[in-house]
């Protein structure tokens, strides 16, 4: 599908280009108010002395008022009082007296002043000066670091990303205290001007993928970006695919281990989800927990996940195909009991399966959207409708209920919601194939999917690595997880990876 990138020639944030910083502080404050449309949370204060004056302004809630009140205003007052000597003297050397170790920038551009103000800077104007001083002192209310709700695990760190980028980057820094850890900043979105960072470990990262990712992010001409999911769609490789091509995660430990593997991560202000790329199909079946648990258990669980994915994808279709085309493949006793269940049912097996799957999808969607207190009501209705009533009313057979519920459970066994979603959608198409051509149809569709998968790329890297192209060495951490001591890369274990 062609990408629809907006080509807005005059972005709204550059309309104030003509304005300059006036020598009069009052004039400057007035100008800001005008440009921002007299905002209610804009705070400004002019401190006047005999010959000179300075003005502070900021947006309430974006900065730390405490810092300003204690460490900026008192020393400035003192300094200005001391130097308040003549009418023409412009006081400049106050920088060292501002007692916060944050960035202090000087600018002469009024547009930059506005930008910084909105990003949580404190702006300082000095009477008769043509420069504005920007003190970076962002501090706003954030959610505390909590356990990620979308990817829970039994063993492993409980920290999850939050909506604040600076906290998220700290979470990674704490895990990788390596001087080669890099953060590259981009601004994306013509309207939202969102900060996006790409993080990687220099020397380890796949350079091609990094180049492609940076190129695509900086080329991205979207108007607004609120979540990494939107960004993901904008920087994906061309062509339609039902599969996700970047891994999304809320877990800093997952991101850190991906960085150590030579992948890169993309994080964004305002969302706890980070993207990891380049992704491979197999990486959607691996969890961070695989490496925290013993290798034999992890291997077993990983195989379970593959089986579950296959069940979620193909079980209803296989059921339809076997009962309507290939009855000879079913053991006689099972066939007889299936036939007994089918006696007197009004719909063909396909319709039965489609109806039940749809009912389940509705229930699942309702379960996510409904207000919390109504939850039990929906699940009770769901359980009764699916489990009991439909069967005893003679609408569907008990076997299809088992099939649908097994499928549903299996689709939850996947650690990544996004790939489970792919199986969820493709399942319906597969059912149509199964109903029109039986097992043959299932094979055809599976073949189509396989051909699609091997041609798929994530950030320019093949998606089916290490199966296609095949690499025997990498098999030790794909379907199976071999113990860590099998690894021959000793230097990595000793932490000397970058020397």
């Amino acid at each position, binding site marked *: 599908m062609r990408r629809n990138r907006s080509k807005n020639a005059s972005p709204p944030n550059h309309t104030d280009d003509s304005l300059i910083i006036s020598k009069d502080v009052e004039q400057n404050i007035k100008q800001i108010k005008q440009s921002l449309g007299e905002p209610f949370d804009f705070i400004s204060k002019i401190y006047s002395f005999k010959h000179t004056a300075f003005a502070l302004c900021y947006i309430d809630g974006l900065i730390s008022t405490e810092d300003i009140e204690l460490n900026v205003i008192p020393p400035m007052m003192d300094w200005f009082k001391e130097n308040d000597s003549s009418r023409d003297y412009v006081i400049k050397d106050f920088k060292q007296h501002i007692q916060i170790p944050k960035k202090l920038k000087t600018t002469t551009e009024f547009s930059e002043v506005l930008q910084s103000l909105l990003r949580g800077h404190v702006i300082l104007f000095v009477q008769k000066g043509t420069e504005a001083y920007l003190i970076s002192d962002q501090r706003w209310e954030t959610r505390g670091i909590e356990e990620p709700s979308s990817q829970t695990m039994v063993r492993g760190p409980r920290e999850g990303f939050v909506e604040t980028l600076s906290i998220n980057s700290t979470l990674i820094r704490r895990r990788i205290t390596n001087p080669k850890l890099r953060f590259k900043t981009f601004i994306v979105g013509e309207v939202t001007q969102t900060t996006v960072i790409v993080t990687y470990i220099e020397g380890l990262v796949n350079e091609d993928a990094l180049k492609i990712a940076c190129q695509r992010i900086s080329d991205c001409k979207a108007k607004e970006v609120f979540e990494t999911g939107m960004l993901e769609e904008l920087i994906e490789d061309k062509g339609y695919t039902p599969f996700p091509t970047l891994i999304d995660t809320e877990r800093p430990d997952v991101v850190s281990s991906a960085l150590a593997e030579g992948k890169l991560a993309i994080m964004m202000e305002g969302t706890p989800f980070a993207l990891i790329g380049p992704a491979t199909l197999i990486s959607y079946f691996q969890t961070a927990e695989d490496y925290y648990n013993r290798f034999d258990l992890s291997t077993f669980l990983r195989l379970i996940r593959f089986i579950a994915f296959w069940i979620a994808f193909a079980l209803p279709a296989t059921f339809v195909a076997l*009962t*309507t*085309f290939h*009855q*000879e493949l079913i053991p*006689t006793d099972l*066939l*007889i*009991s*299936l*036939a*007994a*269940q*089918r*006696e*007197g*049912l009004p719909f*063909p*097996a396909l319709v039965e399966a489609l109806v039940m799957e749809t009912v389940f999808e509705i229930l699942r969607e309702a379960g996510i959207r409904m207000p919390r207190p109504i939850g039990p009501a929906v699940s009770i209705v769901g359980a009764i409708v699916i489990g009991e009533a439909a069967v005893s009313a*003679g609408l569907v057979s008990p076997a299809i209920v088992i099939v649908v519920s097994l499928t549903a459970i299996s689709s939850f066994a996947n650690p990544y919601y996004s790939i489970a979603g792919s199986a969820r959608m493709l399942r319906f198409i597969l059912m*149509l*194939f199964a*109903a*029109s*051509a*039986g097992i043959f*149809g299932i094979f*055809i569709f599976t073949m*189509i999917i396989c051909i699609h998968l091997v041609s798929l790329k994530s950030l320019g890297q093949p998606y089916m690595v290490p199966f296609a192209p095949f690499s025997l060495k990498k098999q030790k951490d794909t379907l199976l997880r071999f113990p860590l001591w099998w690894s021959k890369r000793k230097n990595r274990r000793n932490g000397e990876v970058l020397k």
Partner: protein
Amino acid sequence: MKFYSSLLLTLLIFLGGCSGQEELNELLILTGIGVDLGEDDTVKVTFQATNPQAQAGGEAGGGGASQANSYTFESEGEDMVEAVFNARDLLSRKLFFPHISSLLISEDFARERGVHEVSDFLERHYEIRDSYLLFITKGATAASILNTFTPLDNSSTKNIESLTKVRGGTLSIKNGTELEDFIRWRYGDDRDPVVMGVEKVNKQSSSTNTEDLNEIEGNKSALRLTGLALFDKDYLADWLSYKDSIAWAIITKESDNVRSYAVKCPEDGGTIGFLLKEMEVKAEPKLVNDQLNYSVQLEGHINLQGLNCKIKLSTEQGVNELQTIINEDMENELQTALTNAKESQLDYYGIKNQLSRNQPDEWKKLKDDWSSLYENMSIETDVNIYLESPGSRVDNNEAQ
């Protein structure tokens, strides 16, 4: 363009439009076929089909009279093909063949018309597998066996199938005799086939009503396996005795790996019952000086299961005595079985086939004199059995 053409190709598969699709409730799942002689030299085919409605039990209906687990349908025709075609007019559902477990042919039919038209039809039919069991019904029509409600199993065919599968039966033939065995022996190996037989335990009683199953006496409606039916080409020639059938199973290695066996004590008429295991059989015909010689060697271990003779097993002498008794008895039985085979002039041990493989040159020379060769065949048997365990006790209690 690429997108649209691939979409078009994909949609092609839906053009089939569910042809060949059959819902389970449109099928009549057959479990057995019986073939009988009808009147005026016609063929009467009996189909046994499961009745899913009955198997659903109380779950679906509740109320409602209980129905039979399976139904049989009969149809007649000039020959097998016509009889099956005629059945289609009779049945409201499509006949579904793949789950047939056994094929029953009545003794009369096999004797008079031969089996070839049945095997031809069934082998050609694309829905029917060749791997189901073939039986000849002894002293009863195939229909009457199919029409029997048997205790413990849902249908008589299922019952017969389990009879052959159960371990430690008298015959203990590994996989039973299947249609494909019959066809292979008859047409592939140039060997006279044998087929398992089945009969009613109580020939007078009929059990065609589910009510009959309410009686506690299971024997009334039970079926049992007989000795093997011996074929001369396609026609039933004779019935083998149990002993001959067992010998046949051992010599042709069709026997289960572990089988029970019983021999009589020499003097006092008691029985020695034992479990014969780890059998190693070597049966080889050989042409020496234009003479046919058939040698059978049998080695095995036994576990004693019953002992009614006065043998002291606690002494080495007693053990040796027991082993000798068993060895001699078994040798005798193998001898008798092979002599019987020789007399019948039917080669159901596959001697011809073995000769043509092992000694092709000699066989080519002497092939035309087969009947005299076979008649004068000398038989060598050598049984070597070792008592592995006397069971949980050694000597029997002394009779006072």
